[in-house]
C-alpha cells in the first residue's frame, strides 16, 4: 500500500494532493513531504487535498499535528480540503477539528 503526494501548482501557498492510506507504514512519506515544504520559514499556510484519502490512523494524525505545531507559531494554519465523512468523524473524535481548517474544495482553501 503506498501513498502518492503531488504538489498542486498555481496557489500562493503550498497545496498537496494526497492519494491513498495514511497509516503507520505510509505516514513517514507524508511527514517527509510536509517537512520539506515547512522547511521554508516563509510558509505560513499549507493546504492538503484529502479527496483521495480513505484512511487516516493515529500515525497520520500525528503528522498533521506536527504540521500544525510548526505553522501555529508563524501565525499560520493547516487546511484540509474535501475530507470524507469517515475521516471527518475520526478528526472530530480526536479533537483535531478544533485546530485544523476544513473546507469542501481546494479552491475554498484561499
Amino acid at each position, binding site marked *: *500500500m503506498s501513498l502518492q503526494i503531488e504538489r498542486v501548482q498555481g496557489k500562493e501557498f503550498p497545496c498537496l494532493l494526497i492519494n491513498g*492510506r495514511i497509516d*503507520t507504514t505510509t505516514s513517514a512519506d507524508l511527514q517527509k513531504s510536509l517537512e520539506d515544504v515547512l522547511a521554508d520559514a516563509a510558509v505560513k499556510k499549507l493546504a492538503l487535498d484529502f479527496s483521495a484519502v480513505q484512511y487516516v490512523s*493515529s500515525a497520520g494524525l500525528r503528522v498533521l*499535528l506536527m504540521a500544525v505545531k510548526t505553522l501555529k507559531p508563524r501565525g499560520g494554519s493547516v487546511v484540509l480540503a474535501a475530507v470524507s465523512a*469517515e475521516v471527518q468523524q475520526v478528526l472530530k*473524535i*480526536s479533537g483535531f477539528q478544533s485546530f485544523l481548517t476544513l473546507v469542501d474544495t481546494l479552491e475554498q482553501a484561499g
Partner: protein
Amino acid sequence: MNIRFSVPATQEGITQGADQITSFLEAAHAPVQLSYHLGLAYEELATNIVKYGYEYKQATEQDVILISIELSGTPPDASQIRIEDHSHPYNPFEQPPQSDIESAAEDRAIGGLGIHLLRKLASHVSYERHDDKNITILAFKDQDPAL
C-alpha cells in the same frame, strides 16, 4: 464471511496484515466505514503490541499476532475483530482515557490517541489474558459517520 491469519509481530508484519485485511474487506464488499474502523482497530492494536508488547524482549519468528475478523449481514453491517498475541500481559483499554482532547495543539501529547479512537468508534471492546495470551476483541456496526 470470516478470515483468520497471523503475521509476525514486527513493523513489516503489520503492513502485511493491513494488505490482507484490505483485500478481504474489498472481496466481502464491506461498507467504507466498517472497513475503515476494522483497519484502524487492527493497525492501532498491532502497533501497540509491536511497540509495547516487545519492549523488553526482541520478537522472534515464533512471535506472531493472530487476527480473526467476522463479518455479519449481507451486505456486511456488523463485524468483530479478535487480536491475540503472546507478549507480556497488556490491556490496551486499561490506559487512562485521553484527557487532553480539548487542549491547544501545541500542548497535546499524542500517546494513547489510537486507543481513544477505538474506544469511541467500537460498539464493544473487551480484553482478557488467557493461556499466556492477550486477547482483545472489538465489535463495530456500520453507522452514519455524522452521528
